[in-house]
């Protein structure tokens, strides 16, 4: 099949609600369900009430060899389900997939890492889990250690590693996987920015080496840097499959018009230790708004639920233009100490303020992610993705909305003397 690496035909996946949403069944629940269904039947109704949802429905597309394809979409659009089927973790209900070449899947970095094992031991274990042969791991061992920059700690149990070291090691093993088809889910949203760049470089190498990559992410920045074309999933179906810039533009625009409300609500998921429940944009007076003047701050209000203490939790924010370009990045470490670390159980309102006169007039989308490098479960504790969008208008400067550029900061122009250090320049 010459040039095709992945062929997906009419792929569908059905989940039975109750099977997926409930954590697990117990005999007691089953007994109760049986009793309920008997009563229902006695009343003349249906014996069973299956609620079925299609996480994917009739998805078909081909990925040519050597191409990097991005997959975007909202939470619950079916992105992860698609990757899970492709990596054989779960099975399709209908349709078929043909994969031409050795498949490596990275749904998480550090899968199978054991805190009690040393760095060396974990490299071997994790490598084997990712599908590397022992000889292959031995051969790449030094390269992995170098890439992770942990030479000194290679025989220390990873539970004593700093969170940064842990992530670096985990990614280093994954990055040395040598598949012909690579499936990646959101894993790049970890690590410090220098290491992220290194990872991006490595990913770029992978793409250049003629490998086929399917990259799922909320992060439009990564998607537009790495992939040439993009699939946009919406409600389990393909909404658009086109060049990355066209898809991202369509995606952000659709978000803008469909979620006309300045408030977004998220369904409660008891399985998450920390979760964003509600997001809205406020102005200074605390009034919900979608349109702001460049002279007022944009306040992002996030209502969060803490169900279990997540050590090392931090929030990550991206402000994107409608073409997907990331204009501003921030995380809760910007405030020292990080206010999200060691939050008490219960509900909290979190406010992020984008100062007045910072962003240029235009249309923006707000992307949020909550991550912990010390979380025992997932690096991504809650990934709401694009949560909201807003419009900035410039009424003050001469050029107003035609100002252009990335910033709306009014600069200090003066003739004569050097500005004094202490004088506050607006």
């Amino acid at each position, binding site marked *: 099949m010459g040039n095709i690496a992945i062929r997906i035909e009419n792929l569908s996946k059905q989940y039975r609600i109750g099977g997926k949403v409930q954590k697990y069944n117990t005999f007691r629940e089953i007994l109760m369900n049986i009793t309920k269904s008997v009563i229902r039947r006695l009343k003349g109704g249906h014996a069973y009430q299956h609620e079925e949802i299609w996480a994917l429905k009739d998805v078909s597309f081909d990925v040519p060899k050597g191409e990097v394809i991005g997959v975007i979409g909202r939470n619950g659009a079916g992105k992860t389900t698609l990757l899970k089927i492709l990596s054989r973790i779960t099975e*399709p209900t209908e349709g078929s997939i043909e994969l*031409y070449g050795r498949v490596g899947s990275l749904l998480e970095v550090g899968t199978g890492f054991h805190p009690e094992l040393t760095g060396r031991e974990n490299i071997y274990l994790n490598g084997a889990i990712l599908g590397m042969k022992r000889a292959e791991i031995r051969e790449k061992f030094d390269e992995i250690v170098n890439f992770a920059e942990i030479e000194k700690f290679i025989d220390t149990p990873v539970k004593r590693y700093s969170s940064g070291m842990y992530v670096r090691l985990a990614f280093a093993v994954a990055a040395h996987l040598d598949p012909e088809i690579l499936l990646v889910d959101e894993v790049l949203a970890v690590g410090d920015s220098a290491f992220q760049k290194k990872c991006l470089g490595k990913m770029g190498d992978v793409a250049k080496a003629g490998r086929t990559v399917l990259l799922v992410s909320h992060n439009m920045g990564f998607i537009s840097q790495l992939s040439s074309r993009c699939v946009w999933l919406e409600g389990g179906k393909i909404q658009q499959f086109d060049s990355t810039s066209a898809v991202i533009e369509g995606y952000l625009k659709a978000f803008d018009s469909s979620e006309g409300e300045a408030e977004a609500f998220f369904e409660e998921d008891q399985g998450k230790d920390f979760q964003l429940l509600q997001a809205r944009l406020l102005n200074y007076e605390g009034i919900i708004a979608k349109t702001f003047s460049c002279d007022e701050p944009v306040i992002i209000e996030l209502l969060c639920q803490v169900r279990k203490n997540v050590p090392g939790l931090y929030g990550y924010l991206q402000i994107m233009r409608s073409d997907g370009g990331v204009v501003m990045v921030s995380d809760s470490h910007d405030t020292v100490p990080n206010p999200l670390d060691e939050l008490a159980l219960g509900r909290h309102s979190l406010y992020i303020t984008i100062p007045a006169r910072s962003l240029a007039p235009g249309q923006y989308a707000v992307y949020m992610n909550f991550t912990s490098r010390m979380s025992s479960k997932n690096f991504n504790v809650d990934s709401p993705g694009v949560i909201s969008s807003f419009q900035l208008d410039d009424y003050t400067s001469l050029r107003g909305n035609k100002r252009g550029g990335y910033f709306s900061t009014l600069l200090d122009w003066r003739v004569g003397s050097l500005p004094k250090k202490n004088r506050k320049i607006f």
Partner: protein
Amino acid sequence: MPDTDTSKNVLIIRPPKKWSSINFRELFEYRGLLYFLTWRNIIIKYKQTLLGIAWAVLQPLFMMIIFTIFFGNMAQVPSEGVPYPIFSYAGVLLWTYFSQAVTMSANSVISQTNLVTKIYFPRLLMPVAATASGILDYFIALVILVVMMIIYHVSPGPIMLLLPVLLFWSCVSATGVGMWLSALNVKYRDIRHIIPFLIQLWLFATPVIYPNTLLPEKYRWVISLNPIAGIIEAHRACILGHKPIDWLSLGISICVSSLIFATGLFYFKKMEKTFADII
């Protein structure tokens, strides 16, 4: 297991058939992972313990001492003319392996949720790696047996060569039970709570602290329906040489073990495809 075809470097994924056969070729390809999972189980068991691998000896040793005090001395449980300590240790040795293998195996899938939901590999490796990793403990605990054989002047006979065969069958038996329980455990977490009781009850239903000759001869075969009973009884006869091996009871236990193994494999394969969705 999805219906896959890896023959021509092309992998085809389709909806699962109702019954999928076991892909032995794939299992063989993943033998490296089985090795690493087993090795990991062994290493983490004794990491950050003061006594380390000595626990493999101490557990059966303490059990033997307690049984000797309560059952051998106080309750005067007969031991077929053999000193009670070595009589019970010859049983406890294999029982310790079996009970720990079953417990670990039964929890193997649910204790590795992140592996199940994030990566593909034949899930069978999990219960199998759990039962395989206990074998080392058995061999370490053999040291005490050798010491006791010297103390009690029990000389090894050629029949002792059967021990590896019996260990193999107890491994088959534990893996069979482990496959059943680990698959059930994914769906019904009640299993996790039942296991400790099950193991305790099972100990009393097995001739570890008493000889099966305690039962009337007419009904002795009933206890052999317990897949490990005949094996443990034969294990003791091998070591002590105090009576001939009861081939009938060993045969029944081996048949029951095989049956549990076959049905367990079948059930595990059937449930395997739903693990990632319901775990």
